[in-house]
């Protein structure tokens, strides 16, 4: 596995863990109640940033 591939995989896994962790915190670990906009919007920033990063990486050679 190349260094670049390993690095990107690590970044992706960290991103997923952070997204899940922020969702856990913002929903309070609840299984009921109302889902607020911020409980989704804040975790959503992480995949959004990753999409931008991977797009820029793909375009700049």
């Amino acid at each position, binding site marked *: 596995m*190349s260094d670049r591939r390993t690095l*990107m995989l690590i970044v992706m896994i960290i991103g*997923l863990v952070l997204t*899940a962790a922020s969702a856990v915190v913002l929903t309070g670990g609840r*299984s009921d109640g109302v*889902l607020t906009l911020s409980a989704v919007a804040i*975790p959503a920033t992480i995949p959004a940033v990753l999409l931008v990063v991977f797009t820029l990486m*793909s375009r700049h050679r």
Partner: protein
Amino acid sequence: MQVTAPLWVGLLVGVAFGIPASLWGIGNPETVIRTARRIDRLLLGCFLLVTAVGSVLLYGLHALGLAMHFSPRPLYLVGVTVGGVLFGIGAAISGYFPGTEMLALGEGRRDVLFAIPGGLLGAAAWTLLYQTPIGKWLVGAANFGDLVVTGDIDTVRPVPMLMIAVGYAALCLMLLSFLPRYTGGKRSYLRDLATTTQDEHDRAFARDTAAYLSEGSVDPLRTGRESRFDRLTDVEVSSANLHSRTIRLVGVLVAAVVVASLFLRQAFGQSTTYSWVVGHLFAPNFDYSREVFAAIGWEPLTDLGVIFGAMLSSIFISRRFTAFRPVIPPSWRGRFGSHPGKRAAGCFVGSFLVLFGARMAGGCTSGHTLSGGVQLSLSAWLFTAAMLAALFLTARLVYRDALWRVRDV
């Protein structure tokens, strides 16, 4: 045993759905358009395979004593039928379902950036219409409630339902075995299961499928060599054999995710998120928004997970990440040319109809066709039938006999 998982688990359910679904290539709008044009029957095979496996798994586990969060969508004849028709028209034009828009976003497809706003506007239009007597009539007229094949979902008896699910699965798998994947294909895979060889017709179609699926893809990893997944994505996904290993594996995985979702918390659905977002941002005091706020579960987090799963899949497995480069589906190019503005308009308008129809019908291809399908829900069958009829007819009218092979357009 009754389980109700926390809301955040929906994120992981979405990832588990997004990875295999992206592998199948359904985030690529050309896949939906080719289904609509009856060139490639992969999506029909997906629906049959997932509902066949899923229904036996669901009612088998239920018969073993596991409590499920059954939630078939209510069967209201007018709204489900009209909604399904509008959904089919929009999907044929745009090439997108609500769920495949999330996949496409994770795969970096540029045209979905126009489809998603169209979908939000469609959801907003339904929120407005629901406020009126017409909207109430659409969902209230001929409303028979939460029906599955044996009657009301609350009266389901586990063992008889399992027997019906086994019969349904046998029927679906038989259909799948007689159904050649590509138009003009002559092979029956029930007869030819022992062999995996394909004739020249099938090989040509498979090559073209692999070509459109990888159109515009970039490799952010820049490894410059084949990965162990290349055969899986380039050869097996495009295989003319609907029983090929990857197609079956993905079908079983998607079915397992749909059933797991019903076991853990709720039905797997993807279009409610649009109404939820619209309600929060623009229409918090409308009747429909209030109903969505009260009923929302983990759908928005599931959609987020699907985006993540598709991103993982397209970068590390299939390598179909397109980095938001302008890629026009071949069928669209063959009919309307390569002008990005026309494609953007088609995505916007088509997706508007898709989401307007989905919200009117109470669900989309995820909530109705897949989740409702595994529950053997009558509204799922009505929605799917109306949607497919409109999908085929619209594609005939819109694309006519336009060229679609990658090398021709």
